[in-house]
């Protein structure tokens, strides 16, 4: 009985475990190993000589890439910029998703299902196509560009180009990731017991206080899980900056992609990936630590 239930447990968890082992743990280890190697003359990797007595001389292993990463300020700058874009996207997504999620959570069941369907509807069309659509919307000949520039002209300001700018990257990031903020927030808000708002009101809380002390603190877990779902993918995103950003708008994702496909410096690309993974782990840890819903009055 005991052994068979344990066996069942193992049988059930074995496939996903194996999947993670093969497609996450193993590549990560390979990448860590790669980051300590030297690039080959024509891309790829230089051979490694791990022979007894030869180890100290030229083993083909090095920490050069890490030294390089920390010696040039430009990489820190790109990391910082990526984090800023990710943080900005997350904050704007929270601000935009919260009212909508609240509206959906507090409306009738019929309307609720319709709204949720509309929120996930964009997933029905291809991600790249949707980004290219933004290229047209933000393009210099688009109605939006004309409208904005006409308004600016009234105030005597110079015309602006929307496309190929940090602004366009941010718009694209927000557009793609907004549903990932709305859904967890809605799931959280929908579970709130409405009697608690009655109780708060009865005990003297006005509309703002009811939000501040009852709805908001209870929604923090939803905000944090939504933030993790937005912040982390935005940090590593390269397609949106590629398509909508200008030449100066590269993010970590672009840099890493470039190391593998452009410069063909695999060890440095691996190093960048590892630094990014470490940063993401720190952020994820911070989020899960903050996600505890606690409020103190005194």
């Amino acid at each position: 009985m005991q052994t068979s239930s344990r066996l069942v447990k193992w049988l059930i968890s074995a496939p996903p475990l194996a999947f993670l082992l093969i497609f996450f743990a193993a590549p990560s280890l390979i990448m860590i190993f790669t980051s300590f190697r030297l690039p080959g003359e024509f891309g790829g990797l230089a051979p490694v000589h791990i022979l007894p007595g030869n180890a100290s001389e030229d083993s083909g292993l090095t920490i050069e890439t890490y030294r390089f990463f920390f010696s040039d300020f430009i990489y820190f700058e790109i990391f910082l910029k990526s984090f800023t874009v990710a943080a900005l996207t997350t904050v704007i997504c929270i601000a935009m998703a919260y009212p909508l999620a609240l509206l959906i959570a507090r409306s009738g069941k019929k309307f609720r299902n319709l709204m949720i369907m509309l929120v996930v509807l964009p997933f029905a069309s291809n991600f790249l196509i949707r980004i290219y659509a933004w290229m047209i919307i933000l393009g210099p000949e688009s109605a939006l560009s004309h409208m904005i520039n006409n308004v600016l002209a009234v105030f005597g300001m110079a015309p602006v180009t929307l496309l190929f700018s940090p602004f366009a990257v941010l718009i694209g990031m927000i557009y793609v990731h907004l549903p990932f903020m709305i859904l967890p927030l809605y799931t959280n808000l929908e579970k709130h017991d409405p009697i608690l708002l009655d109780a708060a009101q009865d005990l003297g809380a006005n509309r703002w206080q009811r939000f501040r002390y009852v709805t908001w603190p209870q929604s923090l877990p939803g905000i944090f899980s939504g933030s993790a779902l937005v912040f982390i993918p935005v940090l590593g995103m390269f397609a949106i900056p590629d398509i909508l950003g200008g030449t100066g708008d590269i993010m970590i994702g672009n840099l890493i992609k470039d190391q593998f496909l452009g410069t063909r410096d695999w060890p440095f690309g691996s190093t960048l990936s590892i630094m990014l993974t470490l940063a993401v782990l720190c952020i994820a840890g911070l989020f899960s630590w903050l996600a505890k819903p606690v409020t103190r009055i005194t």
Partner: protein
Amino acid sequence: MALLEIRNVTKRFGNFTAVDNISIAIKAGEFFTLLGPSGCGKTTLLRMIAGFDAPDGGQILLDGKDLAGLPPEQRPFHTVFQSYALFPHMTVASNIGFPLKMAGKTPAEIKTRVAETLAEVELTPFADRYPHELSGGQKQRVAFARGLINQPRLLLLDEPLGALDEKLRENMQRELIKLQAEAGVTFIYVTHAQNEALALSHRIAVMNQGRIEQIDEPSRIYNFPVNRFVADFIGKINLLSARVLEVSAAHLKLTVTGLGEVTVPVSGHVKAGDEGVFAVRPEQVRIVAQSPEIPIESQLLGKIKDFLYIGDVTTYIIALSNNTLIEALLPNSVPGHAKLFDIGDPVVVSWQEQSAQFLPD
């Protein structure tokens, strides 16, 4: 002047009249109970007092001032909800301190008063716990403490003991009476449990279908119900259809289905020919074994048909010779006997004239 006056209040939901032209005056310091079956409008009335619903007609006045248009957060009333409605993300101390915080008290004052209140309800060791870490009785006490801490003019209680088991409920009832007396706060208590209403209240309003049937002290509600509904709803009672034959200064002569002619004390305004019910409580019915010493005539003879033994008392159902059923409640106080009669025992049924009454339809 009454603390709270409910004046001709009506509330309709579509075609349904939930509260129908109700008027009540509640005195300061009173423990007032709205009692009635579910759907009688008692909770709707409570929500209107709290300010969550607006009456369609009539007024609710506090110290003679109309409360119309004043939202719940601005009314000096607090509510204890049936589900407690404790904030799950706040500790016991924060829950209790919430009304003070909303009232803009300083952190120092909140801290002192929360500590005092926690001590009063014996929850000091639980100050830093969360609601999900408390037992039902503890949650209940937190809800009471939270409702009372900011000294509301009125505490509204919506079936607060409904979720507790019986033993705990009895303890909480005693605690509630003590709490009310100590706090000196006026309570409006809503319940469908008649024994709870009788045990707790100074006065009870018995409600039915949106209207008030009777407002009185518990003992008067129990002993002198004004109509069939109140008599039937509060406690157990024998009800037999009857018609008034004769009215004299102190007595009514009735003809009762299954009993024949019966005399009861005068009650209310009745006249000869009125239809209604003859009513007598089971504990007022006396039964003795038939014996040759008791004269047969002028007595009601019957046989024990069934009984319900519940430990301290036994309810006997007696079938009279014409098959009319009468219930009698006897305490099981004779040592060595589990119960006094058995099914089929021939008995004589009687009651004192003053303990029976006529209730008009």
